[in-house]
C-alpha cells in the first residue's frame, strides 16, 4: 500500500463548505472513485433547544482529531481525508462537524468516515452545553454508553 495520505484538520468557529472541501481533495485527481462526506448538524431536539455551546480544549482538540484521522489513513487506503470541527455557539440547523474521505474504492471511504465519526464523538475534547428555547442554560450533553460501545466495532 502507498503512504497514508496526510489528513487536513481544522478546528474553527466559522462555518465550512462541504463542496469546497470535496473540491480541495479531488481537484485534478483521476484515481478517486468514491468521496464520502459526513456533516454533523445542531438539532433543536423537538423545539427544546435554542442553541448548543461547543466548548473545546484548544490545542488538544486539533492534536487529537489529527491522531484519529492519521489512524484512519493508516487503516484504509485513502486518497484524501479532511476533518473540520467547529466550536462556539451553534443554532439548530448549523453545521458542527465535517468529515470528507476520498478513496479509489467505496468501502474504504465509507468505513473511514464512519470510524472518524465514532472516534470524534467519544475521543475528541469537545463538550456541548444546551441553551434552552425558553431562555437560560440547560445541561451539558451527557456522553452515551452506546457511543463508547460503538468504538468496540473498530477494535479488531
Amino acid at each position, binding site marked *: 500500500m502507498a503512504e497514508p495520505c496526510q489528513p487536513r484538520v481544522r478546528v474553527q468557529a466559522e462555518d465550512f463548505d462541504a463542496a469546497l472541501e470535496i473540491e480541495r481533495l479531488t481537484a485534478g485527481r483521476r484515481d478517486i472513485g468514491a468521496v464520502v462526506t459526513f456533516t454533523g448538524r445542531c438539532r433543536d431536539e423537538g423545539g427544546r433547544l435554542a442553541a448548543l455551546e461547543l466548548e473545546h*480544549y484548544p490545542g488538544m482538540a486539533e492534536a*487529537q482529531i489529527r491522531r484519529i484521522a492519521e489512524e484512519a489513513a493508516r487503516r484504509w487506503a485513502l486518497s484524501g481525508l479532511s476533518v473540520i470541527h467547529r466550536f462556539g455557539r451553534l443554532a439548530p440547523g448549523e453545521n458542527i462537524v465535517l468529515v470528507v474521505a476520498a478513496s479509489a474504492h467505496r468501502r474504504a471511504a465509507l468505513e473511514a468516515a464512519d470510524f472518524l465519526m465514532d472516534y470524534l464523538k467519544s475521543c475528541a*475534547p469537545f*463538550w456541548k452545553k444546551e441553551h434552552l428555547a425558553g431562555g437560560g442554560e440547560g445541561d451539558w450533553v451527557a*456522553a452515551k454508553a452506546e457511543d463508547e460501545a460503538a468504538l468496540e466495532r473498530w477494535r479488531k
Partner: protein
Amino acid sequence: MKLVYFAWVRERIGKESETVALPPEVGTVAELLSWLRQRGEGYAAALEQPQVIRVAIDHEHVTHETRLPADGEVALFPPMTGG
C-alpha cells in the same frame, strides 16, 4: 503544575485553570484527583465521582494510573461529546 478544567468540571471548580505546587506524595493522576477533592466544596463537587473524570497530560489522554510528569499541563474534564 498547570491544571486546566473544562465543561462542568470547570463550572463546579469555578475556574478555567490554575497553577499548583503538588506535595511530594501526589505521584499519579488518581492521587492528584484525591488531593484536589480536599481543596474545597467546588473541587469536591466536580470530583465526587473521580472514575468519570477524563484526564489529559500535555494534550494526550492518560489513565488514572499514569504517573504525573515533573512539569506540564494536566487537563481534567467530563467524558467528551464531540462530533
